């Protein structure tokens, strides 16, 4: 049967979710070390309770554990993100354009760090990890509508910050 206690099932859950658990905690708190710890902690807990957690619930179980681990415990640090290397097309752009791009990215970085933690996490899970609103809602344990609200507010304040409104 499909049981989380089975090595294969557990291993596939790990492969499919560990990176997102890591990112999820990183977007919240901006601390890579804590994010690594959260992955270990969450999966050890899942293994210990493998007989009580059905595979379909494993995902939300992981995020709940990871989230609870740092609830009110650590102070959020600056989230530092990278940008994909510019494609060839972009590299032929004029120095002026490249400079503008660089400035834009700096503004975006600052704006992201100014966002409330839940808006930033929702925005980045969608933009970087390609998570649908429904998936994020499951991870955060809230309704899809709440996630849409966070996303809307995130876009609004990012644009305002960047455009200096």
């Amino acid at each position, binding site marked *: 049967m499909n049981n989380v206690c089975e090595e294969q099932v557990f*291993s596939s859950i*790990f*492969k499919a979710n*560990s*990176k997102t658990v*890591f*990112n999820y905690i*990183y*977007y919240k708190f901006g601390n*890579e070390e804590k*994010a*690594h710890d959260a*992955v*270990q902690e969450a*999966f*050890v807990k899942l*293994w*210990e309770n493998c007989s009580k957690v059905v595979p379909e619930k494993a995902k939300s179980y992981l995020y709940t554990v990871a989230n609870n681990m740092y609830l009110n415990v650590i102070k959020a640090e600056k989230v*530092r*993100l*990278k*940008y*994909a290397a510019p494609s060839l097309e972009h590299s032929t752009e004029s120095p002026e354009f490249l400079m503008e*791009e660089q400035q*834009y*990215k700096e503004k*975006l970085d600052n704006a992201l760090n100014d966002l409330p933690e839940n808006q930033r996490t929702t*925005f*980045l899970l*969608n*933009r*970087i*990890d390609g998570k*649908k*609103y429904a998936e994020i809602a499951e991870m955060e344990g809230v309704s899809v*509508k709440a*996630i*849409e*609200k966070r*996303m*809307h507010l995130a*876009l*609004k304040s*990012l*644009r305002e910050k*960047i*455009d200096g409104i």
Partner: protein
Amino acid sequence: MQENYLAKWLSGALSEAELAEFKKSEAYASYVKLKEVSETLEAPEFDVDQAFEQLRATRMEEAPKVITLHPFKKFLRVAAAIAILLTGSYFYVNSLDESISTQLADRTEITLPDNSEIILNADSKITYSEKNWDTNRDVKLEGEAFFKVAKGQKFTVSTSQGTVTVLGTQFNVENRDGFFEVTCYEGLVSVSHNGMETKLPAGNSFMVIDGEIKETGKPHNMEPSWVNDESSFERIPLEFVLSELERQFNIKVNTQNVDKNLLFTGTFSNTDLNMALKSISTPSRMNYKLEGDNVLFYAEKTP
């Protein structure tokens, strides 16, 4: 425009009419730019395989927590531990040596597994292994004892001052502070003292006082006198006579102006203290005072 239209637009959930309206707004270009650039964002590196290996290592350490033991297995473990403890202590207690001792003014007779007999004088102790008796007739002695050894294997009496080895005979061993005496009444006894071996035929004694081997008189009887409730001495320093008196009556002896190196020859009763005190004081020209458990011997006033 509907609620949360920016989120809907990003996920492509806006209707055509709404999208057209949004495109007309001045902020539209900014949102398109934001959408494009945020698509190139990347999270920090995360090595899934490495993290999985780390987790596997942690899980191994914590494995006992995870696997719940069958309760009966747990019970078996405890039972096994108790069984080992019980067997261990059984063998330990069994291998412990038998030990018999006498108090002051006390005497006891012991019959060994091979019917050898030991009479233990006051304030003495013997130790032997009952379990190994058949192969190893070895007795440790502190104090004084008379042995009637049944014929058989070598019989050894170990003391702090020397070892006595016999095959089958009757002999007395006295091992007191500064005093060691072996008297053979029957057969042949071998005494090893300070690495020197002495063969002792029946009717002979071997005596060491304060580390010095002394000539001694031959025994007059077939048994040591103390077996018959008397203590006999032949040219023995007074010091050891008084120590014997203390042991036989459980009293404390003090002296005043008395030379304890004087040699004493005589016998005292082990049952009648007043008789014993007279037996010692008269030939040595001493007086004595008895108060409770204390005896004071003092020199007779010269007339």
